């Protein structure tokens, strides 16, 4: 069965994706900053290697690469771990630049660092890379300038990597609004119970990994399975 590395697997989309793939027999390496949360999120799953740590830490990334080396192959990398920035999110005119740097470190630099580190085994497996993006990467929402511009940068990294390394599949995956802890941080004090659960996005991600369409940016709606066959 294929192997995947999923970052930020203790909550939200990362957790839902990891559980769905593990339940389908995939062999997983997962990380998250909080070890206890990660262990809890992966409870009951077979063949999951948990490597707690922060993707912005080079030492942690090296440990992830060691885990991949022990697994012997890597078919899929899901760069899902993301940093929203301050909550509530400040307007760009007031955005603390040190915070902006941290947002870029997690959302742009760390994904590329993992790609550089794991490119060889991914290429050997003709693998796929999923960089989790956001509608804030393409829409100009007030207050989303830090996170949104970082995800826009991640989208462009994905597009250029697809041109430079065409033997792999490169996806920027836009899951849209979901009822997650991060979404709650973005809207502190608001009721987000109307947003869909992250599990509802997983079928689109599974379709991306199963069908391997051409590299590109995909929204969930692009990958919706038609209710009735055409």
């Amino acid at each position: 069965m294929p192997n995947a590395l999923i970052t930020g697997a203790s909550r939200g989309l990362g957790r839902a994706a990891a559980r769905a793939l593990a339940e389908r027999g995939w062999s997983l390496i997962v990380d998250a900053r909080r070890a206890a949360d990660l262990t809890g999120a992966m409870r009951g799953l077979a063949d999951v290697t948990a490597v707690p740590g922060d993707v912005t830490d080079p030492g942690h990334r090296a440990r992830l690469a060691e885990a991949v080396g022990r697994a012997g192959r890597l078919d899929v990398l899901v760069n899902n771990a993301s940093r929203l920035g301050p909550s509530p999110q400040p307007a760009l005119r007031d955005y603390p630049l040190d915070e902006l740097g941290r947002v870029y470190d997690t959302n742009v630099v760390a994904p590329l660092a993992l790609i550089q580190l794991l490119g060889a085994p991914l290429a050997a497996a003709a693998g796929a890379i999923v960089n989790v993006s956001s509608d804030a990467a393409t829409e100009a929402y007030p207050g989303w300038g830090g996170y949104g511009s970082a995800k826009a940068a991640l989208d462009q990294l994905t597009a250029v990597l697809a041109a430079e390394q065409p033997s792999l599949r490169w996806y920027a995956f836009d899951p849209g609004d979901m009822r997650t802890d991060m979404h709650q941080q973005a809207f502190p004090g608001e009721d987000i119970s109307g947003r869909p659960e992250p599990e509802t996005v997983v079928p689109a991600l599974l379709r991306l990994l199963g069908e391997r369409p051409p590299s590109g940016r995909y929204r969930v709606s692009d990958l919706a399975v038609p209710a009735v066959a055409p």
Partner: protein
Amino acid sequence: MRPAASRPPEERGLARDGVRLLAATPDGIVHARFGDLPRFLSAGDLLVVNTSATVAAAVDGLRGDGRPVLVHFSSPLEEGTPGEAAAGAGSLEEGPPCEAAGGSMAGGAAAGGGPPGEAVWLVELREDAAATGPVTDAVPGETVTLPAGASLTLLRRYPGPTATRIWVAAVAAGGAVSAFLAWHGRPIRYSYAGDPWPLPAYQTVFARTPGSAEMPSAGRPFTAGLVTDLVAAGVVIAPVTLHAGVASLEAGEPPLPERFSVPEPTAQLVNLTRAAGRRVVAVGTTCTRALESAAGQGGAVRGRRGWTDLVLGAGHPARVVTGLVTGWHDPEASHLALLEAVAGPALVHAAYQEAERAGYLWHEFGDSCLLLPPAGDHRL
């Protein structure tokens, strides 16, 4: 006139099977498109195709004195490679597995005397990014620095001390050389191919097992649709695998030994086809070499895998293959001798003359040729 195709047909507004096909048959020479191939074959004829996939075998490096160099990785050197000390005589023994996906190019185990943790490969050093010429002043012991902290050390010339361009090299890539090439390499190309093209341009529709340093290009014009047409016409298609080495050899140099596999079911189909009086048409010189390497004295083919250093020519005519699909390549090379070993010098000469007259496009992105010598008389 031998105009080179500097761009893939898809970049020239053509489908892959839209390239020209010169069919040289007992009835004469016919100009067609590759998609017309079913017209020239009969139900029960057997097409043998190569499932080897092209790897990104060219990597930039720096020589000890800082000069840039381009390294072409030809194949791993293993026990069983002809010319390798451990090989003994038997290039056709049941050798190391050729088709174990990933394993064939893994290069994890050191063979040929390299230190543990290093893989030993056959490599060629070229002068620059356009691979205009071979490096001629390299010496044993020289180290070439490769990307991402990798390096290689030239151990000795191959196959022997008087060889000029192929080296046995110990490669330290921090992991499998196949993975290193997949990430840091790019397809081998020569100066006639104007622009660099991505690796998918160098894969045939049959490519399954990575291992060829250069594309088995005769299969390039096939498409899934054409394969369907062939199957519907009753033409049988069977796979072999032969990982092509670097093809930059000069006139007079014998082709390098290559890893191949002829599966037993393919061997049985070949024998059945011959017994039924139908044609065995090899798609490319790679498939020809594989099939003829698996043939016994009487022409019966058995399932076989390993390394082959077979060189077909006037002294060793084809015993199994009775038709050939091939691209247009420089007729000075041993390539021509192989074509003649299948189709006879008269038919090959007529085909080349007509292709040059009619302006067929040369090289791996160019036009195609089907050689169907008269049955039973094909080597006259």
